[in-house]
């Protein structure tokens, strides 16, 4: 019996190990023109989420919280299993539950999708980000936020076709899934993939994950899911988090997964714009913050920037994602 590829299933080391992800592995860096070329090309990695094997247990959420030392609040029940109710700066991944009656069979299907950063090959967040080095992309495909460099402007939220990053109310920086870059850097898979009881989440090279997906899709087709397929949207250059969907012809039924996500045209040319518009404004604001004592109200910067960003995105004509509702 052949085993499925699962680099996630090994135990992490306790002896000190050098990180395998460093400066020389960056392929992109936000608001930075002169990034030296990477010293090597790492094998692209990917997390594959097989929605058809997912039992919605939230082990991924739990493992994510524990590994990343976040502190999601104890909320309330609002008539749904989705808890917390949205991604937050303390909840980088979220099971979204949808009760969907399949019109062709009249059967109920409980669609459960693990939401979180897709680690786009062409990352809208990074392109939108005006803060140098706040968002980086490694040659293996991981898109990571470097919080020290984040200014909390929220452009990344607007630039993201999947509506993923969240701005912390506590430290006014943007947060999202790192693909457990600290684990990947020592040869481990992400915490969610290791925990996933049914291995609906698997992690490995993108090539392996695509091959694994083929087998899964064949199995689903044999069970009557004619439109089963791999979600690896070309509009963002493909993603390093992919889904196997039973109904790949209509991704939106999975709690609004975009059918054809794209980075808005404006964000595509953001770099030029921000040089002259965004950053100039921010330089002014930062200087102003020193004068007006924004230390106590740092949100003001990001709010204005959000408005700016929103304007830019809207004039860009591309469909913006629904605004992030922070309900932590």
């Amino acid at each position, binding site marked *: 019996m052949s085993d499925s590829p699962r680099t996630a299933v090994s135990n992490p080391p306790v002896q000190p190990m050098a990180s395998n992800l460093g400066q020389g592995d960056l392929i992109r860096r936000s608001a930075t023109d002169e990034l030296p070329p990477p010293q090597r090309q790492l094998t692209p990695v990917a997390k594959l989420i097989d929605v058809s094997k997912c039992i919605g247990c939230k082990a991924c959420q739990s493992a994510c*919280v*524990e590994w990343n030392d976040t502190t*999601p609040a*104890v*909320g*309330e029940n*609002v008539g749904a299993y989705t*808890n917390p109710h949205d991604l937050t700066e303390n909840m980088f991944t979220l099971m979204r539950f949808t009760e969907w009656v399949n019109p062709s069979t009249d059967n109920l299907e409980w669609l459960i999708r693990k939401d979180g950063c897709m680690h786009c090959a062409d990352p809208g967040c990074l392109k939108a980000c005006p803060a140098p080095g706040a968002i980086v992309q490694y040659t293996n495909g991981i898109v990571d936020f470097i919080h020290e460099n984040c200014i909390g402007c929220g452009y990344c939220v607007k630039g993201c076709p999947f509506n993923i990053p969240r701005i912390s109310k506590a430290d006014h920086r943007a947060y999202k899934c790192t693909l457990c870059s600290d684990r990947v850097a020592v040869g481990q898979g992400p915490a969610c993939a290791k925990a996933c009881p049914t291995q609906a989440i698997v992690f490995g090279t993108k090539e392996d994950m695509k091959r694994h997906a083929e087998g899964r899709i064949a*199995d689903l087709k044999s069970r009557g899911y004619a439109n089963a397929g791999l979600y690896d949207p070309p509009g963002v250059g493909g993603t390093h988090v992919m889904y196997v969907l039973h109904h790949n012809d209509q991704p939106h039924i999975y709690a609004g997964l975009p059918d054809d996500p794209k980075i808005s045209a404006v964000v595509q040319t953001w770099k030029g714009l921000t040089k002259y518009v965004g950053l100039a404004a921010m330089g002014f604001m930062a200087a102003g913050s020193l004068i007006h004592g924004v230390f106590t109200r740092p949100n003001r910067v990001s709010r204005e920037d959000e408005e700016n960003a929103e304007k830019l995105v809207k004039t860009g004509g591309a469909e913006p994602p629904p605004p992030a509702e922070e309900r932590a």
Partner: protein
Amino acid sequence: MTNAWTDIKNTDLVVVMGGNAAEAHPCGFKWVTEAKAQRGAKLIVVDPRYTRTASVADFYAPIRQGTDIAFLLGVINYCIKNDKVQWEYTKAFTNASYIVKDGYAYSDGLFTGYDEEKRDYDRSSWDYVMGEDGFAVTDPTLQHPRCVWNLLKEHVSAYTPEMVERICGTPRDKFLRVAQMISECSSPTKTMTSMYALGWTQHSHGAQNIRAMAMLQLILGNIGVRGGGMNALRGHSNIQGLTDLGLMSHLLTGYLNMPTEKETDFETYMSSRQFRPLRPGQTSYWQNYRKFMVSFQKSMWGDAARADNGWAYDYLPKLDVPAYDVLRVFELMNSGRVNGYICQGFNPVLAFPNRGKVTSALSKLKFLITMDPLETETARFWENHGEYNDIATRSINTEVFQLPTTCFAEEEGSLTNSGRWLQWHWQGGSPPGEAKHDTWIMAQIFLRIRELYRKEGGPFPDPILNLSWNYHDPNEPEPEELAKEINGRALTDLRDPADPNRVLVPAGKLVTNFSQLRDDGSTACGCWIYSGCFNEAGNNMARRDNHDPDDTGAYLGWTFAWPLNRRTLYNRASADLQGKPWDPSRKLLEWDGTKWTGYDVPDIAPNARPDQVMPFIMNQEGVSRLFSRGLMRDGPFPSHMEPFESPVANVFNPRMRGNPVARIFQSDVAQFGTSDEFPFAATSYRLTEHFHYWTKHNRVNAALQPEFFVEISEELAALRGVVNGGWVRVWSKRGSVKAKAVVTKRIRPLTCDGKVVHVVGIPLHWGFVGAAKKGFGPNSLSPFVGEANIETPSYKAFLVNLEPTTAPGVQS
């Protein structure tokens, strides 16, 4: 479980009914997804709710809670009618051919011998015809009208698809689809596994639910084979171990029984435990009962257990009732007849039914001792928490001790999982503050009481003063020395009966396994079925070889499985009467002409010929029982019984309420509701985000499922004017709770016997201490009635009413 979690990957069809494996046992459920992904297995879920298990199922069928017997007998009927029977297996390995006495009959929902006054059956007619040779009479041709097979055929014939729909509310076409899929597994090369849990046990007819599926699995030839079996998923991490070790009112270790007061001395006790084989040449392994019992008594009381005092038989308490089960104890407590109570890692305020009665009972105690790593509602039952625990604190005179214990991370020892694996674990953290190991606390209590008896004397101190307590540090016995005591040792040199000069086990050495135990007082063994867990080869429970030759899923080198490291029970039944595997691709064992060989430890004498010695060695018959004689209180066959609180009457006998032989205390009779007043069918369950009442103390799990809720259909919400996410009040004859409403398409009204039945789902994870929001549990509502054979409370089917309301603490 008859099989192991890792064996589920070998199956062709998984039936999850009476359980919710994906939510309650996610990491075990991985072997279901593995079987689906790797061998194209199918998954069927039959449940009142469309669960997270159903979300990955190939087929889902709804059923009204408490009607599983009708459904399963319907499937058996379908299989018989459509000749979907593994005939060779059924004829050889079950009692299908046994002839039943003439007196036995079934009509109007009742078996012969019912006494309404006593709420009990005279079971004498539920037995085999015995021949002059002293063996049961059989008809291998199955022609005899009184053979078990023909009685079974007749018994299940009432359960037509139409009848199943009428009772269960399962649409006929959905039932037929399930029956058809299951019936395919009658092929010797197709197996089905049954994964069940408390959805079957927590009914007044729980044991018969399980029997019905076991019978179906037998006629399909699915017991003892890879990817088959009856797999009780079980609840707590060591609930299997606590049961194996006999921490129950009616048990001793290894399924030896506590004596009753009718068994006045040791020989009388043993006289009903001879277990003579009912067919020639059969094993009837319980014939060794005496060896296990004497070795147990020696383990408890050492030199004080002697042949001349019946092995200290009088040291054991004698029962005057079948058991002082928890319901009986709380009934006694509530009537002022219990003074002291110890709750070790147990939270009865949330765990036992009719919370009002439980709290009232605890309030009558003189003293309550709790031992737990965490705060519990029980330790604080006297504390007022407003609507969540509205109690007159000052009026409660119970003295309470709350003793802090270590948790798993701070202790060493073994746990037995549901696949019977005894797995050793090691301490990794230091206990917080003054928390202590349970062994230390139990030793301290014992040593202090023993000292008081030494000094002061008192009634019958002998079993206390003579309890063997020869530990390195009597104040805290160490896990390894306890494990060795459980395993057993030779007290004198054990000599080979065939060659008295040969010493098999020298005095003082650990026995290899229970085959070396003796009934002459020369061996001691705490728990015979665990013998072999820690012998002279070392701690077998700590073995960590995870190789799996030929990927069978057996893992014989990983820890230790009882009995004798055997991974699949009845595994000899995986081969036919010639000893050839039914399915060569799923071989477990094979007869090589002189002995059994294969991937597992044979569940039969290694040289027992396949055509002579039958696989079910624990039964006197040597075969399995489709007809269970008088061994169960409520019938030799399962039959449809309604819950005590049911939305519809029993279609076979409208006068019959619940299980006709289930025990009911007089004080509870007035607290049963009817469907006029309480129209909705409630059920209770766990959610995957939580473990019982523990994880509400954990900030992470509290965030993932923060607040108590109930689940209802869109139709019921419309009927009662409930909005999704709004507050509802749910009440029964016994109590009332407030909850958030989750309105869902996953629960749909059912039509049963012409009546629309609305289901209310009530998860059980909230209380008034911990990190999650305060809430209630279903035990505030559920009835105080137990299963007829074992007294497991009926949590899965009772009646409630429901209306919109306001948040707790807010006036409506």
